[in-house]
């Protein structure tokens, strides 16, 4: 069966000539029928992909990006109603029988998934998982197949293919797992590669290396690539063309440069305005824009209007009474808007200048001195006897910083760097072994249980995932009233009133009081979590990746809320994020953590400009910037953060440092250097600062 399909498809290609696009999606619509009604996941989507081309597919969550990718694969749960057509080399995919479709999957069309840890079978060696795809579609004998497998593993940049092939997924890092998934997708030299958010769950440094791999693939294989992502920076870095989806429709399509420099749909402009961008040359710092409202509900059927009109700042009567169709703006640029020529980049309100950063005049709100935390104990060879074989797990070592009143300290670092342990130590969720915390100059007990109500009220935390940090069984009311009840002596009616105020301050009206958290969108949930954190008028809020799980438009709302609250109340923040763009935007000071050690700390501008610690430099170099013209600096970190029970003799960063100077790095702990111009800017490195600055300036360090 497999051979017949291939032959048939090849003849189609030959007959129609080279003009034909590899993939043509024509008016695709996908409607799921659920017990609560029809869900229009994709409404009217059309675009094409040519061979050797990377097409980025962007949009907020709920816009149908992933459904589109799976619809192309012919893999949709349930029995949805599919309209329109998907053509692969001119072949209508809907006409293929199950066996023909199977012969296509993993062979001519292959997929890369969002979470490689879940996409790989945990109980099967990864080599075998790749081998399966090879032997299913190619007629190779065992030795040839094994050879091909080794080649594939090598081609995705993994060293020592024999060892890797014999590993189980859990023995590999996230980046290595994703490389295996990519190798699996490349097994049969696919014509079309569908990548569904392939770097979303990865560290920024790993993301950069995977993106390099995808860019490299583009040159090597003659496949068309559909790259689904919510991250405009990522798309700007690797896509040739970009398709923007909104509420299941494709609303704009253009070559990547045109789309970022000359967007012609208000939604695209909105998405671009939401992203915190590097400080422009002029130094004018503008407030983040956000797109009000939320995605047109997929449960509603097409009412014959522009689906974006309810969120669009330039909507007219025509927009609400007539549905726009995609119209050409230029040869290669299409927009589904009645007024593409009126769209401009400052469409989204006036750009408001941010107020100057707060002065750090008063005593610091929080002081962290020599924070040290290990988990577990030394393990001995035989339970209680024998030599010590495994040291305890290091989380943080000697972390010092201060948070001034009304200021924000950003903490950045890869996963495993100890960011969350610092956060949890501050709010007293983990006992610390050594080191002192001071709140307004007074000693703060290590564990939350030992702290008094005032201290607890002063330090509040906002978590990454609001869906799991709000109690799903209790209404919003409870989540906000509880801290008021604990931390204030208000009467019941005062509390009720205050709770409504708090909700309003985060942009939700009083009707949300009795909703259940699960009825709210992710952004609304996080705003409820913020309102709850604001409830006791805390002096310091620890925000652990508070916007990482949110869409860009919602991310902007949450960041603006935090900023407004800080300006109004003078609250201090410890803001943890892996996204340098966000940290750069919100922070007055930045602490860069690596493997539990402070690599660099100081005022935000100083940390992010030369000279910086080689690790900071690598992070900056890896961070995707939503500008297709940005020249990416070629500094990449291989490997991953050292195993947490490894002990460092020399510099904690020596094993991965791209600027390592020699044995001194391996054998001597790095000295603390202070830059002459900025006494609070500290770098732990063996390389003299002037030398660092010279090296970094010469390597096209356009760090914003």
């Amino acid at each position: 069966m497999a051979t017949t399909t291939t032959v048939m498809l090849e003849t189609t290609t030959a007959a129609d000539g080279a003009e034909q696009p590899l993939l043509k999606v024509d008016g695709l619509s996908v409607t799921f029928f659920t017990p609560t009604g029809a869900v229009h996941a994709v409404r009217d989507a059309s675009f094409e992909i040519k061979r050797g081309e990377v097409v980025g597919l962007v949009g907020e969550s709920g816009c149908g990006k992933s459904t589109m990718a799976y619809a192309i694969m012919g893999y949709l749960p349930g029995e949805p109603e599919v309209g329109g057509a998907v053509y692969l080399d001119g072949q209508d995919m809907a006409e293929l029988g199950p066996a023909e479709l199977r012969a296509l999957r993993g062979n001519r069309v292959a997929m890369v998934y969002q979470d490689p840890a879940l996409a790989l079978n945990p109980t099967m060696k990864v080599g075998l998982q790749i081998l399966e795809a090879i032997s299913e579609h190619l007629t190779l004998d065992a030795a040839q197949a094994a050879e091909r497998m080794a080649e594939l593993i090598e081609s995705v940049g993994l060293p020592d293919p024999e060892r890797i092939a014999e590993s189980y997924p859990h023995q590999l890092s996230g980046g290595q797992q994703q490389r295996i998934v990519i190798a699996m997708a490349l097994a049969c030299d696919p014509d079309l590669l569908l990548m569904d958010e392939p770097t979303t769950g990865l560290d920024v440094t790993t993301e950069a290396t995977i993106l390099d791999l995808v860019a490299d693939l583009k040159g090597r294989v003659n496949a068309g690539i559909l790259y689904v992502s919510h991250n405009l920076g990522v798309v700007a870095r690797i896509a040739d063309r970009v398709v923007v989806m909104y509420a299941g429709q494709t609303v704009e399509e253009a070559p990547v440069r045109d789309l970022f420099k000359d967007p012609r749909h208000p939604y695209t402009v909105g998405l671009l305005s939401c992203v915190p961008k590097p400080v422009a040359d002029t130094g004018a710092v503008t407030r983040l824009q956000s797109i009000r409202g939320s995605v047109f509900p997929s449960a509603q059927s097409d009412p014959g209007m522009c689906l974006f009109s309810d969120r669009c700042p330039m909507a007219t009567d025509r927009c609400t009474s007539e549905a726009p169709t995609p119209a050409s703006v230029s040869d290669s640029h299409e927009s589904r808007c009645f007024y593409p020529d009126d769209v401009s980049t400052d469409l989204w309100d006036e750009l408001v200048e941010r107020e100057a950063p707060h002065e750090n005049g008063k005593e610091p709100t929080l002081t962290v001195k020599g924070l040290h935390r290990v988990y577990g104990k030394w393990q001995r060879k035989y339970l209680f006897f024998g030599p010590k074989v495994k040291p305890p797990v290091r989380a943080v070592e000697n972390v010092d910083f201060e948070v001034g009143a009304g200021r924000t300290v950003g903490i950045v670092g890869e996963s495993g760097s100890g960011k969350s342990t610092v956060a949890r130590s501050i709010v007293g969720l983990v006992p610390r072994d050594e080191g002192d915390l001071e709140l307004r100059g007074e000693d703060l007990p290590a564990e939350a249980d030992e702290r008094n109500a005032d201290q607890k009220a002063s330090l509040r935390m906002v978590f990454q995932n609001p869906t799991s940090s709000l109690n799903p069984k209790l209404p919003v009311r409870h989540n906000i009233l509880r801290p008021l009840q604990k931390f204030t002596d208000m009467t019941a009616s005062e509390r009720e009133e205050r709770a409504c105020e708090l909700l309003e301050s985060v942009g939700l009206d009083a009707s949300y009081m009795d909703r259940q958290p699960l009825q709210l969108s992710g952004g609304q949930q996080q705003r409820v979590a913020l309102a709850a954190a604001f409830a006791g008028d805390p002096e310091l809020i620890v925000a652990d990746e508070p916007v990482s799980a949110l869409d860009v438009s919602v991310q902007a709302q949450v960041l603006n809320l935090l900023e407004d609250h800080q300006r109004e109340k003078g609250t201090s923040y410890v803001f943890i994020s892996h996204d340098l763009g966000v940290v750069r935007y919100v922070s007055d000071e930045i602490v860069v953590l690596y493997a539990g050690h402070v690599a660099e700390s100081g005022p935000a501008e100083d940390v992010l400009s030369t000279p910086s610690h080689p690790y900071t430099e690598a992070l900056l170099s890896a961070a995707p910037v939503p500008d297709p013209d940005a020249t990416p600096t070629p500094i990449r970190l291989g490997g991953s953060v050292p195993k947490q029970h490894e002990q460092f003799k020399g510099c904690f960063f020596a094993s991965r440092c791209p600027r390592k100077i020699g044995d001194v790095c391996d054998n001597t702990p790095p000295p603390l250097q202070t830059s002459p111009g900025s006494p609070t800017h500290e770098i732990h490195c063996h390389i003299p600062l002037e030398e660092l600055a010279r090296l970094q300036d010469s390597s096209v360090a356009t760090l914003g």
Partner: protein
Amino acid sequence: MTRFLVRRISLIVVTLLVVSTAIFAITEILPGDVAQMVMGQGATEQNLKHIRETLGLDRPAPVRYLDWIGGVVRGDMGHSFVQKIPVTEVIEPRLANSLILAAFAFLVAVPSAVAIGVWMGVRQGSKTDHAVSVGSLVAISLPEFVTGVLLIIVFSSFLGWLPSSSAILPGTSPLTRPLILVLPTLTLTGVLFAYIMRMTRANVIEVLNTQYVRTAVLKGLPMRRVLLRHVVPNAMLPTISVIAVNMGWMLGGLIIVENVFAYPGLGQLLLTAINTRDVPLLQTLALIIAGTYALSNLVADLSYGALDPRIRLT
């Protein structure tokens, strides 16, 4: 691995010690007297005293316990109070009979339950699935003495195909008359089968919804291969512990089934030992049951470790 085994086996020894103490204590509390049981109602005080002395029952309980446990450590399980022969000799033939029955039940129940569980998981929501679900619930709800009697009524009394009693002459093996094993095996299998089947079905459904199964399907693998290579191995992981727990359950079932069918196995012997207050016999039987239970859990953990590379036994 060695460390794991050493630790687990020492834990098993501790468990057995605790079990033996508990059993000994319970037999002390139980009303009734061994000497009375041995001699019958007409025994004189003199006779009873004599019996107590010969059996060593006049000594204090802790001394008797230590004496007994000392023997166990040397491999001497003591003599049966009632039959006056070494406990090991009483148990040996019975143990073989019980093992045969248990093995049959296990070999019938486990493979068929897993196979049907996988099939129902794949065909989730179909009419067959519903029918099997209801059937298995009924099997779980009915105790063995009810299913056993029902089976006797249908297959012996009504259809007359199979013998209703599984009694055999002492010294003969049940394997010489395999027909007598059919009904006890079926009765024992019922609950075991239903539990394992339901567990397998639930796990298969869960695994079918994982992303790695989606990956396998989108690799273009045929459904049969997806099931055999990706779904079943992962679905079996939690099932294994259920099988181990059910081994213990089956031991309980054995006692009932053997009594219903008059099958000369350990279960029947255990009941006799309780009735006659035959403490050395009772102790040994309790140790065998507890030991089997602990060992099957150990085997489950070991096979879990062998099947799931993420688990490291330490």
